[in-house]
């Protein structure tokens, strides 16, 4: 298993992937540096809301799709699937490793956003102590809320040879976010809105350390994750390459 991670690492090392990982945190950083004004009594929370709004509503879901498509790019180009599956590895292993790498890339993006947040706080000279718990709930919650999206995007990326087709699937599902996040009725049930809802720090409700309620977390996030992941996995296990 470890070797498979190393082979994936070899494929993405020195690719444009690293450039893309930095895109959203850098834009959030620019937003924070120019747009942030220290006003209220919870400057860190405000900075976090400002930085994560754009990042979570559009960038995070859309970048998930780009990462997934990039991870499958080598295999789609030049018959790499045949080559890879001719090695002594099972398809299940291949699929699980791809998914794990995808989630690791998303985690790296979230960590860079944390760095951007700290940089904004430092540049603005926020003196109050860093509310680590809230920040990690937001970043970690956003990461977990990406699970179903990542599963569906990996499915689409494995299925379509074209790079843009899985992204189109992604965009079609992500654009409604702009309306959905404002709706208290539909919002909690729409998988693509979950990263946004999970990342915005809220005080009043939520389960444990998360900004999502327990029902949303289990039914919507984990439920849709299981459906999408199982669908992608069985598809990949059965398809001819």
């Amino acid at each position, binding site marked *: 298993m470890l070797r498979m991670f190393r082979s994936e690492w070899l494929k993405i090392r020195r690719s444009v*992937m690293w450039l893309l990982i930095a*895109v959203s945190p850098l834009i959030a950083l620019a937003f924070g540096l120019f747009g942030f004004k220290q006003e209220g009594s919870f400057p860190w929370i405000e900075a976090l809301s400002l930085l994560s709004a754009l990042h979570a509503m559009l960038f995070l879901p859309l970048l998930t799709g780009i990462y997934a*498509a990039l991870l499958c*790019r080598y295999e789609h180009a030049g018959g790499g699937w045949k080559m890879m599956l001719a090695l002594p590895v099972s398809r299940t292993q291949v699929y699980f490793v791809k998914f794990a790498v995808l989630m690791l890339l998303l985690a790296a993006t979230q960590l860079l956003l944390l760095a951007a947040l700290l940089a904004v706080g430092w540049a603005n000279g926020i003196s109050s102590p860093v509310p680590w718990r809230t920040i990690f709930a937001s970043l970690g919650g956003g990461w977990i809320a990406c699970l179903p999206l990542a599963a569906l995007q990996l499915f689409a990326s494995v299925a379509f040879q074209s790079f*843009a087709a899985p*992204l189109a699937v992604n*965009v*079609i599902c992500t*654009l409604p976010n702009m*309306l959905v996040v404002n709706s208290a009725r539909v919002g909690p049930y729409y998988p693509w809105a979950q990263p946004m809802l999970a990342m915005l720090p809220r005080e009043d409700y939520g389960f444990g350390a998360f900004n999502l309620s327990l029902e949303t977390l289990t039914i919507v996030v984990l439920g849709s994750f299981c459906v999408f992941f199982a669908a992608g996995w069985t598809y990949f296990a059965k398809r001819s390459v």
Partner: protein
Amino acid sequence: MMLRLLSAEFLKIRKKLLWLLVALGPVGVVGLQAVNFGLRYDYLTKQYARDLWGGLITNVSLLALPAMFIGLAIVASMSAGIEHQTNAWKMTLALPISKRQAFGAKFLLNVLLLFVSCTLLVPFTLALGWALGFAAPIPAGELLRAAYYPFLACMPFVALQSWLSVTFANQALPLTVGIIGMIAAMFGSRFPDWMPWKWPLLVNAWHEPLYSVGLGLLLGAAVFLIGMLEFARKDVK
């Protein structure tokens, strides 16, 4: 000549997902607004009581703009992807056509596909308005302006995305540029007037949408020419 090139381009995208996307864009935008108006009918009709059609058109273009920005990036990437995926640039350029013509044909194809998409917006919006029971005088001029002015004003981005998609074999780059463009366009109203991302919003200091359209067409032509010259000099794989 150009006509024959275009028909070749259309042949390449026959029965491809591309057409589905071109139709899906406007269907999705109007469909979402149908849900929006359906769920909040009383609230929205009260808010736009003085001009129901105008309110509908405003709401549709609010969503249509980001959809158009990301849609044109995807369309450009997919139409260039046909050659990238099969490593067929050499084949295409080995035909008795110049590289400039090949580039022009791709650009024109993207423009036409986007045109189809924007045109479909008109009947769909009309259908939604009638389905919601809005009264008769349809603001035809306003509707057509809302469909075609942003399309013309975003020509620089069609040219840019066509260029990037053709230049880079790895489509992650042009698509990321497209995503950034879409998000920039959503905040367009905060930008100064000279920023191209603001033009498709048709807002400017003179309150004259045609200025934005004209600027878009001019810069679009410039980007197209630069891209064409660069592509003509470049070696293909």
